[in-house]
């Protein structure tokens, strides 16, 4: 399996990245190289082998459902690229 230009266009779109034609060429070659390299895994017999979901045997770590102080609103908003009336501001989403 190799990666085609169409594949790269598709995954760039899923990743919400815009590519120029030149970048499209470049990434198609590079991603093909890497995917071809990764194809060596297809030679390994993995029948009946359980996938590793977590390297430590930790499952469902819960905390008590208690109210705790959170960060200050103004503090949090300091990092927002655009804000208005104590909120993060975004372009109109619904017409």
């Amino acid at each position, binding site marked *: 399996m190799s990666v085609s230009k169409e594949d790269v266009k598709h995954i760039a779109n899923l990743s*919400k*990245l815009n590519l120029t034609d030149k970048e499209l060429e470049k990434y198609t070659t590079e991603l093909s190289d890497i995917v071809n390299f990764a194809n060596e895994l297809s030679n390994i017999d993995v029948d009946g082998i359980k996938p590793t979901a977590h390297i*430590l045997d930790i499952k469902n770590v819960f905390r008590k459902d208690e109210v705790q102080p959170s960060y200050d609103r103004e503090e949090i908003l300091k990092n927002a690229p655009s804000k208005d009336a104590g909120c993060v501001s975004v372009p109109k989403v619904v017409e």
Partner: protein
Amino acid sequence: MDLYSLTLTEVASKIKNKEVSIKEVLDNIYSRIEDVEPKVDAYITLTQKLAYERAEKLQQRLDNGEDIGVLGGVPIAIKDNICTNGVKTTCASRMLENFVPIYDATVIKKLEDAGAIIIGKTNMDEFAMGSSTETSYIKKTKNPWDLSRVPGGSSGGSAAAVSAQMAYASLGSDTGGSIRQPASYCSVVGLKPTYGLISRFGLIAFASSLDQIGPFARTVEDATLMLNVIAGHDKLDTTSADIEKEDYTKALINSVEGKVIGIPTDFINDGINSDVKLAYDNAIEKLKSLGAQVKEINLEYAKYSLATYYIIATAEASSNLGRYDGIRYGYRTKDFDDLDDLYRKSRTEGFGDEVKRRIMLGTYVLSSGYYDAYYKRAQQVRTLIVENFKKAFESCDVIMIPTAPNTSFKFGAHNASPLEMYLEDIYTVPVNIAGLPGISVPGGFDKNGMPIGIQFIAKAFDEKNLLQVAYTFEQNTTYHKEIPTIEEGK
């Protein structure tokens, strides 16, 4: 002898015994930085103001007879993907160029509780993706052993800062070798602890099933002190292991008598530089002469670690980096038509080449139709690698391999092929895949005078055996005492 050339242990003891004031130590390290940093470029941000304020408070407490901690007054550098309250944390990316965290990572709290002084944030590959620190959006860090070569990566700034004596120790993060490989390239000690031993709360995520924070230091003893401070369970990190705290300094015993060292011969013969191989063979002889038993072991699946790694790590990265959308924090594009355009332009302009490559690769291996062939298969091979190591550790205490197949390369050497650069990680990624602890210790120099690292690997949570063998190797060799020239090489 200048203060900056002391080890962490030595300077901490001088401060404690009031042979020097904390201010003198800070003055000295910042003047060293002023001299050397223009050539090395290890730091993104220096935090003099905060550091001096802290120094004054710590000194007062010390003068009042208080115990200010094992790292009391010691200047430490932090990789710029670890959140520091009120201090810019950029991940060396345009995306986070102006990001100022409003909280401290747990490791920062622990360091400060132990009396450390954060003196600055260090350069790295963008979002920790790279093996040379060349993908940084901010600057290029040079290798103190030859300024025309890379320091390794992704924690290149943290390694170079310690190597060039601009910090007594530093923190880095290691997802596929990002602490051990630059430690090897810069001739310092770099420790990647067991997955789960160190809290990652406040570490900006790259690949969550692999990422681990760890220390750089000039000696194994110093790295052990750092580990003692930062290890431990944290309820803010649900992947942190809830185990009893240990005193790792008890492992600093100069003996390998009776220890069994595993040598995976089949794994290390391909594509290894002859000088590195020679250093490795010398290391085997050295440990034998010190009474260790050397045993050949089989790691037949280790060679598949790289392919496994680049599937799992990029898949996780594509998910983790989905949060950078230009809305709540981080870079937002100036001109956009609508919300979707804002997302696309912010991400396209905010991320560099390598980050985009990995996001797309990760998206590819997770996408419909490819998931089973790549992601699921990689997770299955991961199981085989984990089992491989488990079996190997039934017959040995510690595994020894080189840290990297080659020594530091010139800037731009791998620009043409990202895959070639990925291959440099072949000896470090298996450790992350299996969640094990690994350490790189100075182990020699190649014919150009560039450092070579020897890597030790132990069972999960068996840092004690790991450190004892690494310490013994270091105490019976002199490579760690060599100091870089901080000049352009031949």
